[in-house]
């Protein structure tokens, strides 16, 4: 794995985690349901995963979320940190084929990205998070599944709206690989 870890990926993991912490601390949007926020940090995580791939995505999820929890709460809720790792890794794995550097982020890529993030996050938040909560903390089954459902929906909205906007904005700044035309 270390062979594939370029310097740029390492720095992206480091600075990406710092951005994740700051967004998690300062930029959450209440949905109106008590204690449920739309985390902009999740949207950022999906952005990093698409741009830098599964290893960076997974590690930003792990390091960013663990640091955010410990700096904010003084302790780490491991079950959800592991889900962030899962989400970052698999979104990176499945959508790394979207070539943002070539400036291509049209309808096809938007659908591809959202299908991937919907599927990965659904598995992560609806299934993995509650199961880990039960295994680690022995919390009541119906409570953790409801919690996972609400948090998962908020995160899917976050990645779907803000994540898509971020990717589109980034792609626009890259020159298209096919932007040059041969003059007659």
């Amino acid at each position: 794995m270390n062979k594939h870890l370029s310097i740029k990926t390492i720095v992206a993991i480091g600075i990406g985690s710092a951005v994740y912490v700051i967004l998690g601390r300062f930029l959450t949007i209440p949905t109106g349901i008590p204690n449920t926020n739309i985390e902009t940090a999740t949207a950022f995580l999906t952005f990093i995963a698409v741009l830098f791939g599964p290893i960076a995505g997974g590690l930003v999820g792990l390091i960013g979320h663990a640091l955010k929890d410990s700096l904010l709460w003084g302790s780490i809720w491991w079950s959800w940190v592991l889900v962030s790792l899962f989400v970052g890794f698999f979104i990176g794995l499945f959508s790394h084929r979207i070539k943002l550097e070539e400036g291509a982020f049209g309808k096809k890529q938007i659908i591809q990205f959202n299908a991937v993030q919907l599927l990965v996050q659904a598995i992560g938040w609806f299934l993995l998070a509650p199961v880990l909560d039960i295994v680690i903390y022995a919390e009541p089954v119906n409570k953790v599944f409801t919690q996972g459902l609400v948090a998962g929906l908020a995160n899917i909205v976050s990645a779907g709206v803000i994540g898509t906007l971020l990717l589109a904005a980034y792609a626009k700044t890259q020159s298209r690989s096919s932007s040059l035309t041969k003059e007659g």
Partner: protein
Amino acid sequence: MAVTMLGYIEQNSVIHRLSGFTKLVVFLIWSSIAMLSYDTRILIALFVVSIFIFKLSKIRFAEIKFVVLFIMGFLALNTLAIYLFAPEEGVRIYGTRHLLFELNGRYTVTLEQLFYQLNIILKYIVVTPAALLFIVTTHPSEFAASLNRVGVHYKIAFAVSLALRYIPDIQRDFHMISKVQQARGVNISPAEKLGKRLKHASSIIIPLIFSSLERIDVVSNAMELRSFGKHKSRTWYSAKPLMQLDWTVLIVSLLLFALAMIITFYDGSRFYNPF
């Protein structure tokens, strides 16, 4: 805006003098016990010990008060949620039923439920002093060295140290961008509708991301020029050698872990059942 985040607090205490490696190992052992065990006796014992260690560190309560308040709020909500969703969970786990009184419908108050919820609260607060101490008594640059020492590859350890190094910078960027956007008329207050707020949030995140991507380029070029990652391992300027005290602490906490596991799983269940 007030900076309400935890950070390293300089002090001269026994805990500060311990190597970061020792503190990381103790923290990991502590959280493993708290995660695995549901044994009330062990949790209470751990909690008492961590309060004692906290005293040793000379950290004043006022310095971490805001975090403790945060945690209390969270715990209160969590406890309430557990009760609302599963008022009979304790009865299911402990297998007996000592009814105290009934509220209405399915909401009963049983000894088992109270005991179960007490355990959940304990499980959570037991980790807190250890985690808090680890954060406020370990210097960020020593943290990376300790991570490397417990077996994390140094490139990953370096990424963590980069994250800690850049949190203050990114925070400054964030506030600047947020103020600039507000000056341009972007309303980030809760008064706006949800859809609008999502859009406004992106108007802050997008500049933040571009400045961060630029940072990533600059830092990785600088590291490339200095041949980062050429060798299989690296040394750390701020790594502390292990002293006698470190070894003592390490051995004691390993014994504690073994003892806790034996007591917890002695009767084949992670729950301690007094009923």
